[in-house]
């Protein structure tokens, strides 16, 4: 879209006001997913497969149905006979199959039946009355084993056009891209390193479990309250799975207790609605933590082979990567994204990347902050670090030498617009952290990271009130303070105080379609939409002023919250403040609102560079992170404090992924660590303060220059920490997490 009158001087944008929803969230008043109830409400519970892979021979629900406190029991049969859309296809079918197992249970924790009862305890008790006969099948949970010729087949025919002939049916997508001639490039290199890397699946670990309250009547009209990153996708998916018209289901997003990509799809919502339809009463469903780990969407696990050639001066002459990603029992592992992002920070003449999407008996992977990118960066940036070490080169200098910039042909194809990688590297080099002395036993690592960012379908509506205040309705749930940034952008355009703008997350019945809060798109896309909607309202304000002055509309401009004549020839009139115009709007043409509906296509890619110091106890292999600095290009930071928060949060999650977090499956294919005791996310005493540097290289695709900041921050940490640990321990770590037993074993092996 055309981006006129780009701004670079700001009044409100770039300030750090208190967030509008702060009071509710510090007093316990804010309503999250599990905090809602309704008259006559029932409580649901879901029965889950104890097997990694099993044919469901028979489900007998009669005893549960006979229980007096049980009001409904549902199985897959309650979803399959849908009157409107008999043939669910593609991703809808995958989601349905994941929400409630069909012929087979495909992973430990796969839902097979559900009940609704008069209390949560009664519902849980009733699950024990459901009898399921399973025929246990061979299973596979490891990505490399799932690709092997003798691996159990999870589903025949799931592969698409892209998979080369002869691959195992568990390989369902194949991606290959790049340019130049890598073999020629390797021949030119002074040193070529080829190495292999493995990462385990991790979970987003949002503290709020999935929760919803659904009501669906026999008239096909429904209400759904749920914790989600996108209530329109929840609406669309639930309607499809239940066979009702999309518009008949109104979905309201609760406050959301963290998502990070994991709440971009549905799990329990269609089940609550199906139970409600059967019981004819509202049904609340809340996952336990164990259900969250077993049956929502963790990341892919990955197995990767990297080969990079470098000249003595640090020039990368060729780079090649093979990325195998396991994404659970359904297509969707982002092997293509891993491949496209892995080498994106560098200006490469010869590059080739291959990605595989592989199915295994695990829960369907979901997005997690820059899905696919962190593992690839771990592998690639580890090899670059090793090359620097062997050639005696400074790791920042080498990255600067090879860094992509405006006009560079990206590893995934096109040429870059204006980007900020070089600026982050220069900031890293100049940062006191990079030159600070290290103590014995400590090591320093750096890494760059890349993420595409996303625009997506967006609707925003802004209504002015007679008193001159404004209400802004957006459709992207506020996960990390986005109400504040929306209000800042609206204030900037309208010229009224930040405090005079009330931002509401609208439900699906009161605003047009909105894509999910993902792809770091909220401040970019809802922000752009907010700016456009506010400008739309400003146009109308100018029209009213022009009419009152009896001059043409184009002779009026908007300045500091007032309509003013656009120049000396327009006439001599006193400025009319917004509130002066809105006070009379009812009698001068009616209410004044602005709106915007479109799909902004200019998200602008983003880069970051992280510096980390780690200390390793050589006797136990235990790592502590002693210092951490995040440097990332935000394009333009609308609310810098919340931008810092995104950087710090991404780094902290990366630290967990690098050091201790992992899905651990037993020989039986069951998840062994489905509680926070054993799925070890960082606690307060594990972390240092996390320093941040906000680099601002404006995105040409946004009127204020915004780039998404939510995801890029988790791309560099895995590699930066692996490099720091490898230097501290004196041995290259090729497997994540770098848990103490793995580090100690590596130290022993190294002598």
């Amino acid at each position, binding site marked *: 879209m055309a981006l006129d009158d780009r701004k670079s001087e700001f009044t409100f944008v770039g300030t750090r006001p208190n967030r509008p929803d702060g009071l509710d969230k510090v007093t316990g008043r804010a309503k999250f997913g599990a905090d809602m109830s309704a008259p006559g409400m029932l409580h649901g519970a879901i029965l889950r497969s104890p097997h990694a892979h099993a044919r469901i021979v028979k489900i007998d629900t009669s005893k549960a149905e006979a229980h007096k406190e049980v009001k409904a029991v549902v199985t897959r049969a309650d979803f399959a006979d849908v009157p409107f859309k008999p043939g669910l296809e593609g991703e809808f079918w995958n989601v349905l199959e994941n929400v409630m197992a069909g012929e087979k249970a495909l992973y430990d924790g796969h839902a097979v039946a559900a009940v609704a009862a008069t209390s949560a305890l009664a519902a849980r008790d009733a699950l024990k009355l459901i009898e399921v006969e399973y025929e246990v099948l061979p299973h596979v949970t490891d990505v490399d084993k799932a690709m092997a010729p003798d691996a159990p087949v999870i589903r025949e025919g799931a592969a698409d*056009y892209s998979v080369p002939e002869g691959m195992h049916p568990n390989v369902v997508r194949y991606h*290959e891209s790049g340019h130049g001639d890598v073999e020629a490039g390797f021949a030119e290199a002074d040193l070529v390193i080829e190495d292999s890397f493995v990462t385990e699946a991790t979970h987003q670990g949002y503290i709020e479990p999935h929760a919803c309250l659904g009501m669906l009547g026999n008239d096909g009209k429904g209400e759904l309250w749920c914790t989600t990153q996108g209530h329109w996708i929840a609406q669309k998916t639930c309607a499809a799975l239940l066979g009702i018209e999309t518009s008949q289901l109104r979905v309201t997003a609760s406050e959301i207790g963290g998502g*990070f990509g994991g709440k*971009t799809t549905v799990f329990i919502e269609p089940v609550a609605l199906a139970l409600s339809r059967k019981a004819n009463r509202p049904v609340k469903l809340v996952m336990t933590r164990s259900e969250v780990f077993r049956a929502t969407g963790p990341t892919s696990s990955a197995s990767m082979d990297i080969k990079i050639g470098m000249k003595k001066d640090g020039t990368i002459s060729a780079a090649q990567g093979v990325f195998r990603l396991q994404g659970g029992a359904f297509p969707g592992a982002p092997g293509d994204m891993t491949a496209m992002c892995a080498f994106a920070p560098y200006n490469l003449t010869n590059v080739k990347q291959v990605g595989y999407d592989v199915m295994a008996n695990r829960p369907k992977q979901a997005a997690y902050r820059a899905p696919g990118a962190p593992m690839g960066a771990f592998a690639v940036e580890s090899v670059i670090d090793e090359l620097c070490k062997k050639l005696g080169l400074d790791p920042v200098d080498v990255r600067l030498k090879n860094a992509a910039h405006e006009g560079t042909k*990206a590893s995934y194809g096109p040429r870059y*617009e204006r980007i900020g990688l070089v600026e982050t590297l220069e900031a890293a080099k100049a940062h006191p952290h990079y030159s600070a002395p290290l103590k014995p036993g400590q090591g320093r690592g750096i890494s760059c990271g890349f993420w*595409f*960012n996303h625009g997506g379908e967006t609707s925003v509506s802004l209504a002015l009130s007679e008193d001159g205040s404004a209400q802004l309705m957006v459709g992207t749930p506020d996960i990390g303070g986005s109400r504040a940034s929306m209000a800042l952008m609206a204030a900037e355009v309208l010229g009224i105080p930040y405090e005079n703008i009330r931002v509401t997350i609208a439900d699906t019945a009161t605003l047009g379609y909105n894509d999910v809060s*993902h792809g770091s798109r909220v401040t970019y896309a809802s922000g752009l939409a907010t700016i456009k909607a506010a400008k739309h309202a400003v146009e109308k304000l100018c029209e009213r002023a022009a009419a009152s002055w009896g001059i043409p509309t184009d002779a009026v401009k908007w300045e500091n919250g007032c309509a003013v004549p656009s120049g000396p020839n327009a006439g001599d009139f006193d400025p009319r403040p917004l509130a002066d115009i809105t006070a009379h709007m009812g009698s001068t043409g009616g209410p004044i609102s602005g709106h915007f509906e479109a799909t902004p*296509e200019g998200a602008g890619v983003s880069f970051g560079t992280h510096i980390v110091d780690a200390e390793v106890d050589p006797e136990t292999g235990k790592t502590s992170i002693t210092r951490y600095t995040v440097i990332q290009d935000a394009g333009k930071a609308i609310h810098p404090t919340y931008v810092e928060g995104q950087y710090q949060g991404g780094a902290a999650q990366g630290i967990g992924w690098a050091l201790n977090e992992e899905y651990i499956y037993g020989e039986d294919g069951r998840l062994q660590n489905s509680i926070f005791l054993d799925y070890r996310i960082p606690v307060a005493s594990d972390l240092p303060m996390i320093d941040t540097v906000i680099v601002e290289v404006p995105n040409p695709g946004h009127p204020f220059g915004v780039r998404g900041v939510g995801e890029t921050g988790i791309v560099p940490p895995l590699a930066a920490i692996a490099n720091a640990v490898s230097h501290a321990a004196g041995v290259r770590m090729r497997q994540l997490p770098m848990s103490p037993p793995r580090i100690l074993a590596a130290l022993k092996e190294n002598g």
Partner: protein
Amino acid sequence: MVEVHLWSGLRSLTGGQQVVEVEAKTTGDLLRALVRAHPQLQGPIDAGVSIAIDGRVIATGLTEPIPKGSEVYLMQRLRGG
């Protein structure tokens, strides 16, 4: 005419060509023209593609104009978290 650069994995569907020339004024035109030229490209296009025009990635839009002489890349559909 627009030169469309494909990702290398698509060469098997275009008889080895990685650059395809088509007549197109918008992103939607471009996808239709690609399928006319190489029917096997319907698969990847149905699976989801994005289009980069002079480095700006159009994630999904089919109405984006393609200026004359711009550099156009077909990419796999981008996804976010």
